[in-house]
């Protein structure tokens, strides 16, 4: 039988995504289930990502499984020059599933072609981070009661933010209307606009955050990093234009929720945290349930 993997969100059909979201709902009600008894999951973090790793390790632990792995490449044989292929073929001997994060794009797809156990992509460079997308979808469905016909406003670094790219692709299955708010240098790339054109979905681009947030069902905030700007003056000028503050939420819809893949720096003012429209910490909790669902689905345990 061919292995089931999760490499790119676009590999999964709408039905498979719903199946995983339903399973995640079940884990939210009943998080501790010993389904991974006697199973070993390898968590290979070729670059550090504390948040994602802890979320996976929490999910594995709540399922009663064991995990092995490394937390950055310097503490593994990769620092001796071992190829992805060799690392994966070796670790596949020690585990029932491999969760991997790697800075090189396409590494997870390649791993899935050489591994004899399932691969879950926990981020491959700027390419894909499908478990994040899945937990974003879970959070949106949970707070809105549906994924259909929503207005989603993406804010911040829309050029390099892979969570934005994956989520916009996934949401394209649900007749979403999009607003993209970013500085000029970090606009959404043309290939995603072409993708939405082909799907005949509505989108608008904006420079100002307060212009359109009244229409939003979801505001998806992302971090703007200084090193993305060729001109540091440009960063200083724009950084405060994309900060969400509590008073700005006054005229937003009652059902509206603010999401953020975290870590946050200053793009959401801390005075938003107490607002019932702030959802980013619960979103991170949803990540554990969603990853429990993904692991058990892929291993055929649910």
């Amino acid at each position, binding site marked *: 039988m061919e292995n089931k993997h999760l490499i790119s969100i676009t590999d999964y059909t709408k039905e498979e995504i719903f199946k995983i979201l339903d399973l995640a709902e079940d884990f939210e009600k009943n998080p501790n289930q010993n389904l991974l008894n006697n199973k070993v999951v390898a968590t290979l973090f070729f670059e550090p990502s504390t948040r994602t790793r802890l979320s996976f390790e929490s999910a594995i632990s709540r399922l009663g499984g064991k995990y092995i792995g490394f937390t950055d490449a310097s503490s593994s044989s990769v620092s001796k020059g071992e190829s*992805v292929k060799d690392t994966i073929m070796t670790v596949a001997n020690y585990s029932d599933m491999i969760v991997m994060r790697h800075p090189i*794009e*396409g590494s997870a797809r390649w791993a899935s072609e050489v591994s004899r156990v399932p691969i879950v992509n926990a981020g*491959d460079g700027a*390419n*894909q981070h499908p478990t994040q997308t899945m937990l974003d979808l879970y959070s949106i469905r949970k707070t809105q009661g549906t994924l259909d016909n929503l207005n989603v406003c993406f804010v911040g670094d829309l050029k390099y933010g892979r969570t934005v790219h994956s989520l916009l692709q996934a949401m394209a299955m649900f007749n979403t209307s999009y607003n993209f708010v970013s500085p000029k240098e970090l606009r959404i790339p043309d290939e995603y606009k072409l993708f939405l054109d082909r799907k005949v979905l509505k989108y608008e681009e904006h420079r100002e955050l307060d212009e359109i947030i009244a229409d939003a069902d979801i505001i998806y905030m992302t971090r703007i990093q200084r090193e993305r700007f060729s001109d540091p003056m440009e960063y200083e000028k724009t950084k405060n234009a994309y900060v969400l503050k509590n008073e700005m939420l006054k005229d937003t819809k009652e059902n509206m929720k603010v999401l953020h893949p975290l870590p946050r720096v200053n793009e959401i003012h801390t005075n938003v945290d107490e607002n019932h429209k702030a959802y980013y910490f619960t979103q991170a909790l949803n990540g554990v349930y969603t990853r429990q669902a993904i692991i058990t689905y892929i291993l055929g345990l649910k």
Partner: protein
Amino acid sequence: MEMNDKKLQVSAIKDGTVIDHIPANNLFKVINILNLDKVETQMTFGSNFESKKLGLKAIIKLSDVFFENDDINKIALVAPEAKLNIIKDYNVVEKKIVEVPDSINGIAKCMNPKCITNHEGIVTRFTVVSKKDVAIKCHYCEKITDAEHMEIS
């Protein structure tokens, strides 16, 4: 035997394939893509012939070699205007034009320096997302390489 293009008539072949309208500077890429260095029958090629359409063109004549469409279409990336004449008993029995295929394995390089195919010895795989201005999408990193940045080996 017809002599419809006297200038280019290097030597007529009895049976085989003539590939015409190759851009002169891509002749050796075509030879590589089709593995013509391994051909054991007679092969003649010429380059830098004048062409109204291409400026300078090249031509390859292969005795007793016939291509499958899937194979010949690979050269569409470097010779999109190429025309094939299939020769049987000194006569042109069929003319073919090349078509950009739906997928491309092996011959193109992904333009993304952070792509795994540029770091480990992996045969590249692409799906063609645009045939007019050729653009290909990497099976691994999912980035698009356009005609301007395409490197063919």
